[in-house]
Structure formats: structure tokens, C-alpha cells
């Protein structure tokens, strides 16, 4: 499997770009989503010829995005966006209109849970791929998703 030659990068952009953009929007916030997307794609393109396992390209791409998103997320925590941000349907954005209030809650989860839940549902990654991105065991990846979901259910139930 790892001997497969790399597909043209164009294909990577078309195939994984939309999910990557959603992931960036959920992780870094709408304001920084496009920067996160572009910086991830540029970093990936730069390193692409050295990628050894063509089959692992999705997890590899999201691990780059996860690092970019953490940087953006920290910048965002230092300078919170206005409250209006909680209403993401207020204006058009490149990502799909998903449940904005719910994703605002996801963004407020502890870092590991936030990342695991986002990778799982917006990135459509398997638990194994999430483990690869977050450099944890498969079991820890599964637990991070599970605990994130549990916390969200509790918060929603409290209202």
C-alpha cells in the first residue's frame, strides 16, 4: 500500500479540501478558517513529494490542519471574537451552514475533546485516523470523542 505513487496534488485538494475547510472553520473559527485552510494546503504542498504513504494522506493532511488550528485557536482565545460570532448563519461563509450554536459549544470543549469530535464529525475521520492525527492510542481517540459527546449532551440537557 505504501508503495503506491502519490496522486497529483490537485486531487488531494478536490477530494479532501471541503472537509478540511469545515474542520478549519469549526476549530479555528470562521474568521480564521480560510487562513487555516490556505496555510494547511501550502504546508502540505511543500512537503508533499516527501510523503511516503499515499494511503495515509488524509490523516496526514488533518494533522497539519490540527496544528494550524491550534495556533489559530490560541490566538482566538487571547482575543475573543465578538458575541455575534455565535450566530454563524448571520452571513454567508464558505463552509456549509451547519448547526452553529452546537458547534460553538464544540469549540468550547477541552482541547482534546474538541479536536477529536471535530475530526470525527466534520473531518469524517475514523478513530484510528484521529489517533494518528492526535498522536494517541486508538482507545484514547475513541475516549476523547466519547467524553466530548457526553459533555455536549450534559450541557444541552441542562437548558
Amino acid at each position, binding site marked *: 500500500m505504501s508503495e503506491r*505513487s*502519490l*496522486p*497529483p*496534488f*490537485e*486531487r488531494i*485538494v*478536490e*477530494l479532501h*479540501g*471541503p*472537509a478540511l*475547510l*469545515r474542520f478549519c472553520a469549526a476549530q479555528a473559527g470562521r474568521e480564521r478558517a*480560510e487562513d487555516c*485552510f*490556505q496555510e494547511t*494546503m*501550502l504546508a502540505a*504542498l*511543500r512537503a*508533499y*513529494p516527501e510523503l511516503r504513504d499515499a494511503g495515509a494522506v*488524509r490523516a496526514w493532511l488533518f494533522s497539519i490542519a490540527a496544528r494550524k488550528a491550534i495556533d489559530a485557536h490560541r490566538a482566538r482565545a487571547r482575543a475573543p471574537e465578538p458575541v455575534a460570532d455565535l450566530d454563524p448563519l448571520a452571513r*454567508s*461563509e*464558505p*463552509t*456549509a*451552514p*451547519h*448547526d452553529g450554536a*452546537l458547534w460553538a459549544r*464544540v469549540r468550547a470543549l477541552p482541547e482534546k475533546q474538541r479536536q477529536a*469530535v471535530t475530526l*470525527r*464529525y*466534520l473531518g*469524517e*475521520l*475514523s*478513530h*484510528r*485516523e484521529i489517533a494518528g492525527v492526535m498522536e494517541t492510542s486508538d482507545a484514547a481517540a475513541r475516549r476523547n470523542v466519547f467524553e466530548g*459527546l457526553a459533555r*455536549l*449532551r450534559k450541557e*444541552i440537557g441542562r437548558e
Partner: protein
Amino acid sequence: MSNIHRDRVTSGRSKGSGPEGDAGKGDELEQRLAEHAAPDAAAWARLRRELAERASAEGLVDVAFERHDSPLGPLLLGATSEGLVRVGLPAEDEEAVLEELAERVSPRVLRAPRETVTLARRELDEYFDGHRQRFDVPLDWRLTRGFRREVLRATARIPYGRTASYREVATRAGSPSAVRAAGSALATNPLPILVPCHRVLPSSGALGSYRGGAAAKERLLQIEGAR
């Protein structure tokens, strides 16, 4: 290509999820989390354009390509920093052409603007309008080598509106008996139209074969008044 990600979105992730199943199959919360559609087409196009510009500015695009409408149908024009490296004819599978470029030149293949491609577009338009008889756009010959390259170089010297036989081309490439090899060199011409393999015909006077199909060959010869 755009329907690929839409499929992924509507059908969930079938590959890679393994025995865990699709993310969207859980309870209501999981379904709400998994709900999303493809990005807005205009916004996606803008992001793609910005990516292409930034990647080009940083020198990260080893093969830039664009599609170009022609009377034969859509052509794919690929260029390296040295020149035009590949012209994909409408009869060719675009994905296969891009994969060939990824394998033989560099996997850093991206749809992006490139001066050489812009120049090639203009010259091709003029050619199809009957206003251009020779191409000045720089060519990158790296996809062909050895005898095949000699055959194509000899082919490039056949004047507009004229034709030559396979044997004549083989002779000019230095090997009069290698008619069959000359034929396969022409059949794998990476730069059709600009390297005019359509001007090479069997000595029987028949049309012969063409990578882009016999109809395309006939059309090109008609444009040039050679048939």
C-alpha cells in the same frame, strides 16, 4: 471533479471508517454534528484561486495546468517552469494525464495560472482561427527521450499544411528502418498539435491513427488546408 466531495458528504465515509461505521449513524446529537453540505461553489472557487496564486508565488507548483476550450473539445495544458510539457487531447482521460504528470514530473500538480499556459492558449486560439502557422510557446520535452524524442523533433519541422510519411519521419530521425518505432513515438506524443504529429500519414494515403482520434486528426489537417 466537484461531485466527488458531494458524494462523500451525502454518503458519509464508507472507506477508512472500518467496523465503526459511518459517523452520521449515531443518535440525534451525532447526526446534528455530522450534518454538512459541500462548500458554496463561488466561495470554493475563490479559495482555489487564492491557493493557486499563493502556491505559485511561493514556487510550490511544479506542474501548473488549466483547461482550454478548443474546436476539438477541452484541451488540458500543463506547464513546468521550463515550458509547456503536456497537451491532453479531449479523447484522453484527464485524470490519467494528471497522474502521468504526477508520476513522471512531480506530484506537485495543481490547477494554477502560468504564463506559458496563457501564451499557449492565445497561440492555440490563433491557430484554430487559421491565423497562426507556427507556435512560439516554449516546450519542455522531458516526457520523451531517445529515439522517440528525435522522431518528435523531426515531426516538429514538418511545415504547416504539409504532411510526411512515417518512413520519412523515421529517416529524418536517423533510422530509416525504424518505421514502427516512429509510429509509437508519434502515438505517445506528449505535445500534440504543437508538435504536429497529425501531419504524419501512412504512405498509403490513408489517415492513419491519432492519439486524439481520427476525427481530430482530420479536423487539424482541414484547418491547415492539407486535406
